[in-house]
């Protein structure tokens, strides 16, 4: 068969712009007549990406080694007799690459046909549908029809491959991204490719299932619907979901994430690429960090104890509850001196919350001591997880009431037990549930004011309990252990009567003469930027999607 005539390929010299000059460590090449200059060692696929051209691919992933097995990225390179895979061909000086020729297109069509030969017609029941590379590429590059009349190869469809992951072997295209992830990133080596030919299947060694703290990433990088995340299985179709860029509040790493919401609920959390923080990955715990939102009992509205002590908590209006809180604090200060006031503030709160905690509680209400409890669990691991489970310890140190300090918190709680502290304000913490203090000691307080998003044991024991927004319901900035400030975004409407913590603190502070306007979280952050040198020049807008590093002294 004669080669189809190609208008884009006249005999040399090639048309279009001349190659730009390349530095000693660079190479310059032409991709679809666009001049591109890239670092030496860059692959053709990556060079095309830099030039804004998509070379379709399945097995290539920027965070993994090159496998070159899916063959989808075949491109035409001048002087090479056959098409070359873009993912494993290094860009070279003077190379002329074409990604849109008839030959490339017919090859992509053929590759799609091969990949789909044994692929089941599962799209209606497949969680990947809507974000599936097979669907996308078939629409863009495939023939749109099947010539395969024979019975497809059948595989196990509900292969329980690990604690949180289900494997559908029929959907798998054997790109081995998951295998490479376990070998190279999580370094847990659970997965391997078994058998061969059309019987090849991803599998585990007997008795060693896919069970590592990062197993969910295999689901993300799976370009098809072969690996699915158990908690998300059949929960929602992805085309209903809206991804809200945010930061994870699970540990001091503060991974960039997307909160996928639908019907005012977070249905899943997926990593958002941020090379300065988490690259392409998040841990499984972070992935499921939205679960408590629906599992734990929420505080619907403000609750206050009836005026006589010992009565049951009753629902109260916001103004009423705030008045009562302020009154309790004032009465205690009058009776026992301001030394009898103390506060416990969480480093899980945002910079805005912590800034207003300092302004409202320390400065306006005159609470002399604010303790920030540390939360430590396990050890730092080789990838992302930090033993410090407070996402904003650095923010608390720079803009809030101080770095987490177990000793100071212990001192305060001992004083509570000894009766030296008569009024305690607890913001976002649960000392009773965490076992830092017992109920009897807490019961000795004249005033316990709790601001928290859920009905924690401490909140249930409170004289005034004020409902704050849970994770994903409010705006705020977190500063991770490396000093990178990132924004958390509001993905959900606040539940029932919940309010952002900073706004509750603002209202409480106003009852003690707090002056500032503080209309929005962004305005609170602007004040932080203006008053705290580390945050100078920053704003919600300036932080953007990837955050910025604070200037530490």
């Amino acid at each position, binding site marked *: 068969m004669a080669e189809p005539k190609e208008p884009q390929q006249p005999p040399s010299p090639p048309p279009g712009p001349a190659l730009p000059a390349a530095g000693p460590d660079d190479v310059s090449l032409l991709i679809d007549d666009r001049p591109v200059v890239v670092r030496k060692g860059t692959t053709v696929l990556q060079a095309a990406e830099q030039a804004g051209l998509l070379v379709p691919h399945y097995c290539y992933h920027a965070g993994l080694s090159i496998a070159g097995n899916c063959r989808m990225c075949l491109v035409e390179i001048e002087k090479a007799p056959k098409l070359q895979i873009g993912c494993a061909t290094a860009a070279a000086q003077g190379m002329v690459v074409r990604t849109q020729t008839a030959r490339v297109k017919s090859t992509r069509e053929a590759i799609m046909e091969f990949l789909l030969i044994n692929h089941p*017609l599962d*799209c*209606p*029941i497949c969680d990947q*549908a809507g974000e599936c590379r097979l669907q996308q590429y078939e629409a863009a590059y495939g023939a749109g029809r099947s010539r395969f009349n024979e019975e497809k190869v*059948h595989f196990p*469809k*509900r292969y329980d491959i690990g604690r949180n992951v289900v494997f559908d072997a029929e959907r798998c295209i054997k790109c081995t991204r998951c295998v490479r992830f376990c070998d190279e990133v999580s370094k847990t080596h659970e997965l391997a490719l078994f058998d061969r030919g059309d019987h090849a299947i991803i599998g585990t060694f007997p008795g060693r299932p896919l069970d590592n703290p990062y197993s969910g990433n295999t689901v993300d990088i799976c370009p098809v619907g072969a690996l699915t995340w158990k908690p998300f*299985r*059949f*929960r929602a*179709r992805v*085309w*209903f979901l809206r991804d809200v860029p945010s930061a994870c509040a699970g540990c001091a790493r503060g991974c960039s994430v997307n909160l996928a919401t639908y019907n005012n609920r977070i249905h899943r959390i997926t990593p958002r690429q941020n090379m300065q923080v988490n690259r392409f990955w998040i841990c499984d715990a972070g992935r499921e960090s939205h679960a408590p939102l629906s599992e734990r009992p929420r505080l619907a509205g403000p609750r206050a104890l009836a005026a006589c002590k010992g009565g049951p908590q009753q629902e109260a209006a916001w103004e009423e509850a705030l008045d009562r809180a302020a009154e309790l604090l004032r009465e205690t200060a009058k009776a026992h001196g301001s030394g009898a006031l103390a506060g416990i503030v969480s480093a899980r709160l945002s910079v805005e919350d912590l800034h207003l905690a300092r302004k409202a509680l320390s400065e306006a209400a005159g609470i002399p001591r604010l303790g920030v409890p540390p939360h430590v669990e396990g050890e730092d691991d080789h990838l992302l997880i930090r033993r410090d489970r407070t996402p904003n310890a650095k923010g608390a140190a720079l803009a809030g009431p101080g770095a987490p300090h177990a000793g100071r918190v212990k001192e305060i709680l001992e004083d509570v037990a000894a009766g030296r502290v008569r009024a305690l304000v607890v913001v976002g913490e649960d000392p009773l549930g965490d076992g830092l203090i017992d109920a009897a000691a807490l019961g000795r307080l004249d005033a316990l004011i709790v601001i928290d998003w859920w009905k924690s044991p401490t909140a249930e024991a409170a004289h005034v309990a004020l409902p704050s927004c849970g994770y994903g319901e409010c705006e705020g900035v977190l500063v991770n252990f490396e000093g990178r400030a990132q924004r958390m975004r509001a993905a959900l409407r606040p539940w029932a009567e919940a309010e952002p913590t900073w706004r509750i603190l603002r209202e409480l502070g106003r009852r003690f003469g707090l002056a500032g306007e503080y209309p929005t979280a962004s305005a609170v952050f602007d004040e932080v930027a203006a008053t705290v040198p580390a945050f100078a020049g920053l704003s919600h807008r300036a932080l953007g999607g990837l955050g910025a590093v604070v200037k530490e002294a």
Partner: protein
Amino acid sequence: MPLKGTPVKRAAHAGLLAATYLPSILKGMWITLRHIFRRKVTMQYPEETWKLPDNYRGLPALVRDDQARVKCVACFLCEYVCPPKAIHIEAQEIPTGVEKGPKVFDINMLRCIMCGYCEEVCPEQAIFLTKEYTTVGVNREEMIYHKDRLLEMGGIRPDPIKKWAHLTAEAGSGTHR
């Protein structure tokens, strides 16, 4: 300002006979008499009902296949495409056979406009518009048809394409759910 225009022409006086109204009465009675012997056009609904054309679009309903398996796999495409948002689905995992199906499948017949988009978009041929057009309820809740009622309305509809045959065979029978 005087009005402009052409004055209305009034009919001339009809005469003495017309003034008795007898010709008009007789003419009217003649028309009535003629209709007594014509074919009747009034339908004795509900004893008699319409003969509906094959492409009539009535209330939507869910169907089962010839193994009595619920054909719907809860893909949510009908919920997505439904213009008045009359459909509400919740999916569930099924331990055998086709792994996914509807736990909840509600159609609000007060909202439904019988457009047939759901039937058209369904990749499993699980929802069809029936020829049913009577829908009665004494409150809004009754007008929301649940899965069981929709399945009862749809009945069994054999499908020549046995797409899930190997899975339902493996499960022993398709009659779960």
